[in-house]
């Protein structure tokens, strides 16, 4: 029995004409760390808030532990939520903020004390229990919000962009802390973010959302290696996937310019217009002329990698090479594409034309 089961869930806000979530279907198992990822406005928060019970479900069914909960009040769903803006009580100190849920439920003082101190210990807040939120740093506030969620021993954690107000360094640190916390507590978690890196590094499964539709559900590897739509291919991964336009004829993959990229190892039939997706690590600088040329626009040394940005076949692309590669701006280089790693998408529907993982298996 899945921990959470969502079937055909739809959402339409009262004050807004069109539907914002269309036919959402998802099963979440116990202990999973699910990440909803997608651009701003795609409906991540809306979906999360429907699960929390803060927003009504227009149609469809939401099940938790085999119980239909559409009409169960938020407080009876046994869920703890971490908000983007922390939602701390400004007039309470750290202790009282963490203790909030337990106090509302009128637990014994000694029990509350024990739980709060334990949570503070886990989160490294012991020294700050007497401080008010305004005297804490962003990262500490975020930990207090996490503390309030974990003392309750809720069955499900929901987190809505909990790290988006932190600076880059702290974000990476808190990312680790949240993962460790999840490992330690094993609580089923749904985590919302617009940051694909967070999704890739944290999730046990990713749900990619676009415009109220689920684009793909899968592990980080599946989503990265086998994107089922051009949207997912573009959205997941950094630097983003490169796209060239072309066609398939007799298993030959051709660019619109006429250059042949290579022969596909699987037959998909002839396709007049395909979008060819190639990750930056699957393009190299060739020693000889391949007919696919790129003009270098600029070069970024990322430490272990060198990112070369340029124009090829009328498209902006990025390739990732070893730092020892020597290229100069405005230089013309020849590219070699690893044909066994390209992703093909129907230019009209954006759907993947084959599963890259199955082909390579």
């Amino acid at each position: 029995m899945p921990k959470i089961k969502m079937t055909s869930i739809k959402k339409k806000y009262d004050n807004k004409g069109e539907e914002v979530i269309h036919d959402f279907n998802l099963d979440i198992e116990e202990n999973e760390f699910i990440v909803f990822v997608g651009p701003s406005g795609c409906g991540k928060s809306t979906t999360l808030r429907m699960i929390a019970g803060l927003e009504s479900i227009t149609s469809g069914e939401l099940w938790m532990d085999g119980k239909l909960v559409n009409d169960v009040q938020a407080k009876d769903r046994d869920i703890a939520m971490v908000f983007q803006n922390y939602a701390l009580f400004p007039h309470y100190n750290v202790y009282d903020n963490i203790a909030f849920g337990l106090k509302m439920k009128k637990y014994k003082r000694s029990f509350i004390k024990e739980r709060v101190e334990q949570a503070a210990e886990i989160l490294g807040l012991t020294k700050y229990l007497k401080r008010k939120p305004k005297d804490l740093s962003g990262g500490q506030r975020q930990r207090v919000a996490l503390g309030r969620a974990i003392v309750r021993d809720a069955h499900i954690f929901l987190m809505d962009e909990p790290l988006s107000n932190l600076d880059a360094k702290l974000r990476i640190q808190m990312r680790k802390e949240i993962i460790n916390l999840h490992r330690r507590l094993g609580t089923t978690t749904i985590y919302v973010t617009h940051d694909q890196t967070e999704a890739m590094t944290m999730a046990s499964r990713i749900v990619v959302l676009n415009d109220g539709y689920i684009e793909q559900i899968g592990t980080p590897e599946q989503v990265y290696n086998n994107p089922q739509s051009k949207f997912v291919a573009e959205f997941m991964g950094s630097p983003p996937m490169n796209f060239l336009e072309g066609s398939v004829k007799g298993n030959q993959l051709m660019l619109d310019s006429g250059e042949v990229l290579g022969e596909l190892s699987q037959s998909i039939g002839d396709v007049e217009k395909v979008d060819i997706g190639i990750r930056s690590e699957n393009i190299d600088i060739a020693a000889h002329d391949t007919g696919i040329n790129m003009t270098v626009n600029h070069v970024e040394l990322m430490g272990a990698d060198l990112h070369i940005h340029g124009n090829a076949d009328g498209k902006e692309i990025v390739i990732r090479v070893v730092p020892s590669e020597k290229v100069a701006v405005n230089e013309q280089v020849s590219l070699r594409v690893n044909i066994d790693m390209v992703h093909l998408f129907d230019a009209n529907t954006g759907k993947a034309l084959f599963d890259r993982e199955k082909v390579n298996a």
Partner: protein
Amino acid sequence: MIRLKKAGKLFIFLGIPMIPLIVFWFVPMIVSLWLSLTDWDYISPTFNYVGMDNYTYAFTSDDFYQALKNTVVFGVFTVVPTIIIGLLLAMLLREGLKGITFFRSLMFSPWITPMVAMSIVWAWIYEPDIGLLNQVLGWLHLPQPEWLHSSSSALWSIIIVTVWKNAGWAMLFYSDALQKIPRDLYEVSNLEGSSWWQKMRTVVIPLVSPTTLFLGIMLAIESIQAYDQIQVMTQGGPSGSTRTLLYMYYQMAFEQFNMGQATAISTIIVIITGILALTMFYASKRWVHY
């Protein structure tokens, strides 16, 4: 040179605005304080210096203590209900409700109506035999008090009018304060299962506390200075039951022409007001959260 310029600026920006304060507040205060040490009768060109006599007289007269008690009762029972009703009204008339602007204006209209005009209407409403209130109570078979005509109910009648007039005003400030409470605090409360009263105690009351302090001080000062409604409805009666310190001051000055004693009372009023405002201000450090 620079110093001179600075001093000049200081005078322009601080000194000039101070002028009206000095002319219209500080000088009369000093004059009044000095008058309270005399037996001037408002008309005669001469008077005697009597030292603290006026104060001794005040502090030993029963009338003074009755007026003091009336002032306190009037203050507490106008300020506290006005604040509570104002907050509840603001919560009731949340944004998003249909016809909100209409209801708000309705609630606010007593505040912009002159107290004198309102008091005249209420004096009629309160009329024991022909007034609206007792008519209604009669239909409902409820007891019909004498309202303004009985010393046991007159002060309460005036309190009701005053609360009614000010509640809409308090509501307006609370409406604004409520809007500024982050929505996610309510959502946390909903998730954690807070009851209505727990939400009030943990979210609403603490987060509107700066407004409560402001309203508390304003309304307290206003209650001490209440005059119009007493003048129109009861003139301090029956038998002094609605005579507050301020009304006592007025009677002594302009009915009995005893300027010395009147100004002594006024000095006491100023001191009480000052102490009250300061206490509320300092006490607020413990319960007001900015």
